[in-house]
């Protein structure tokens, strides 16, 4: 009963919020209430207790519960952020639906069902991408539509490849070869390509670049962070059920590790040539995907622990980065269309959040991401210096890219004379539109939205606390990793 409530309640609330979507504040309150109710239901579900509903086996372990709590927390944060930073008209109902589907995926034990739900959730994400705020008198941008179409196509192709690999796993007989290649090699190739598309590994990264560049910040943050975690869980469950593909393909695993390294180094290199905050952020995320993938395909206790913990930290860092980005792009009363270099002075909390989020993503102390990156480095160093040094190089390159964009956009000098001229011209043109009580100076000194600034600081605090005290989370992840049979088998 609890499982059913947990799965169906947010779906029914999503339908309610869709009906009431014009009343933005009301549905934000309802959605945050739903999240708290979900958290309550989750706390009541017993751990490691297999339950069968309509022939489907559901189960919850400590790690799944941790990640579902994380989903619910970032969902609540996204709803609160949308109070001040307008998002799409259907943002709340679609996000509730996405959260419901993704939480259900973590409860399921059947890889076919998990994958089909993951694909369904990806379709709902497409709807969130092409959404406009209530009453917006504008048209949806063609870039956004192109991004949504690209995402849709790539996710369906990824799903098709993964599904095919699951079917082949299902009919596999030990020692069997079909055609000229061993079946396990074919399965591993399909599985890897499918998940490389989902993780946006190079050369399958284009959807992530476009999404970060054109999507609204909260939708992008949720799509990237939540879907990467659920994808990882689907992959781990598949490997758990079918460890043979790993045992019979040691060379394949080496190639996959090289793929992770190539992704990280290439993305680190590409961060150096980006001209916008969003593009740089996109390549930082791809760099991190490469690191997570490296940890995952190392198929060792340390590597997997690093990958799982890094995904947790990445989610916090992504939320921090995108909330900060949304604030940095918030109209600040100054003349539009002029490139700004002083965003840290103008929006100090958002600027600080962006820099800290970037550092957390790079895994620099004392931010979260430090412990998980250290585990991934440790795994690489244990294997070979030829794997460890490129990963370090990737981090150094990504760090330089981050420093470069921060220097260009955040840490530059204050508004120039040209900016002021632009402001005065704008003010002269629109003078009559300004309320008589509102002076130009007041418009220039508009402060950051308080609630969003507080959320940014909270996220920053969470990144610091986890960075300084990662042991409880690491212990929990370690317990679950030790129970994975495919890790023991290798």
């Amino acid at each position, binding site marked *: 009963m609890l499982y059913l409530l947990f799965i169906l309640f947010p779906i029914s609330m999503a339908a309610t919020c869709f009906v009431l979507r014009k009343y933005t504040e009301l549905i934000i309150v309802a959605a945050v209430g739903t999240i708290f109710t979900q958290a309550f239901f989750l706390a009541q579900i017993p751990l490691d207790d297999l339950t069968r509903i309509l*022939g489907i086996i559901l189960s919850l372990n400590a790690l799944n519960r941790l990640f579902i709590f994380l989903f619910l927390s970032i969902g609540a944060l996204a709803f609160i952020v949308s109070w001040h930073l307008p998002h799409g008209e259907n943002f709340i109902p679609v996000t509730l639906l996405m959260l419901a589907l993704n939480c259900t995926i973590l409860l399921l034990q059947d890889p076919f069902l998990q994958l089909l739900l993951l694909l369904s959730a990806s379709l709902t994400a497409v709807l969130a991408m092409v959404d406009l705020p209530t009453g*917006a008198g504008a048209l949806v941008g*063609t870039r956004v*539509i192109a991004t949504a179409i690209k995402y849709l196509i790539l996710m*369906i192709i990824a799903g098709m490849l993964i599904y095919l690999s699951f079917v082949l796993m*299902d009919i596999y007989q030990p020692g069997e070869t079909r*055609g000229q290649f061993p079946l396990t090699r*074919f399965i591993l190739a399909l599985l890897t390509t499918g998940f490389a598309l989902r993780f946006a590994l190079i050369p399958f990264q284009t959807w992530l670049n476009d999404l970060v560049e054109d999507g609204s910040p909260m939708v992008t943050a949720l799509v990237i962070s939540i879907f990467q975690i659920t994808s990882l869980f689907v992959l781990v469950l598949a490997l758990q059920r079918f460890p043979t593909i790993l045992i019979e393909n040691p060379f394949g695993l080496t190639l996959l590790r090289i793929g992770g390294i190539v992704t990280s180094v290439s993305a680190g290199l590409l961060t150096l040539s980006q001209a916008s905050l969003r593009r740089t952020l996109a390549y930082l995320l791809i760099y991190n995907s490469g690191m997570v993938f490296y940890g995952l395909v190392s198929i060792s206790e340390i590597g997997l622990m690093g990958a799982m913990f890094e995904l947790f930290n990445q989610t916090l860092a992504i939320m921090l980065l995108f909330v900060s980005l949304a604030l940095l792009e918030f109209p600040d009363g100054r003349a539009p269309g002029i490139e700004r270099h002083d965003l840290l002075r103008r929006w100090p909390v958002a600027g600080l959040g962006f820099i800290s989020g970037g550092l957390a993503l790079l895994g620099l102390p004392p931010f979260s991401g430090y412990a998980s990156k250290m585990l991934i480095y440790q795994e690489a160093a244990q294997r070979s210096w030829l794997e460890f040094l490129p990963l370090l190089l990737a981090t150094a390159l990504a760090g330089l890219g981050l420093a470069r964009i921060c220097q260009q956009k955040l840490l530059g000098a204050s508004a120039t004379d040209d900016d002021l001229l632009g402001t005065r011209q704008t003010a002269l043109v629109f003078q009559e539109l300004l309320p008589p009580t509102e002076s130009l100076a007041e418009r220039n000194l508009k402060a950051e939205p308080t609630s969003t600034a507080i959320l940014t600081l909270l996220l920053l605090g969470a990144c610091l606390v986890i960075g300084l005290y990662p042991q409880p989370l690491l212990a929990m992840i370690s317990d679950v990793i030790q129970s994975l049979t495919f890790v023991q088998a290798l």
Partner: protein
Amino acid sequence: MIDPIWPLLGLTLSAGAILLLQDWRFTFPALLLNYLSLTVFLGQRLFTADQPLDYWTNSTIIAVKLMTGIAVTAILTITALMFSQDFGLEELDEFGLAELRRAARAAQRLRASRPFRLSDYTIPFWALLLALLATFALVSIYPVATSPLVDFAWYWLGLTGLFTLAVAADLRKVGLGLLLCLSSIDLLYTAVVNAPNASGVGVMALALLSFLTLSLALAVAYLSALLYDRLKTLELSELYNQRT
């Protein structure tokens, strides 16, 4: 019992027509024929399997597949028929309305400058041929199912779907390509996982596959409507020319 060659022929011809033709008035009926053939083909496989499921389960699976196919075609056809109407114009500001007028003029010019040309079918034709060759090659090089007919059917659907995506010039065709890809894995799952050495089909997985197919049709219809509202055409070249 129907000879499996006939539904297979229906699958082959309809998927080929979807890849080759461009006008939705032909491709959407071809999609319906594809779903009908798929249903008959699967029905034939399910009822003659070595370890057949009970009569009601088989009938339910077939009925669900049939309804899904009809619903998907209906969703796409209704969307295509509704394109001549404008919605939500009252919410747009002057800039938005002006942009729409400009897009309508550009689409009109595009239509006027592109009469029927046989050369438009060259690439789809070669893609069709390539898909056919690849299907025959894969069936012999890499058989997955116990029956070569099933292998031919799912490889053909998957490859025509992928090639349709590759040669698609408009969003409708992209949608058709994606639906063919989904049909391919649907067929593979239903026919192969039901084999004696496999775990057996899950009713919930089949239901979710149908739900996913319907959701995909809805998503394609929604994106098509959105694109048409914006550019007055579904041409992908226009979308990438006017990326703003």
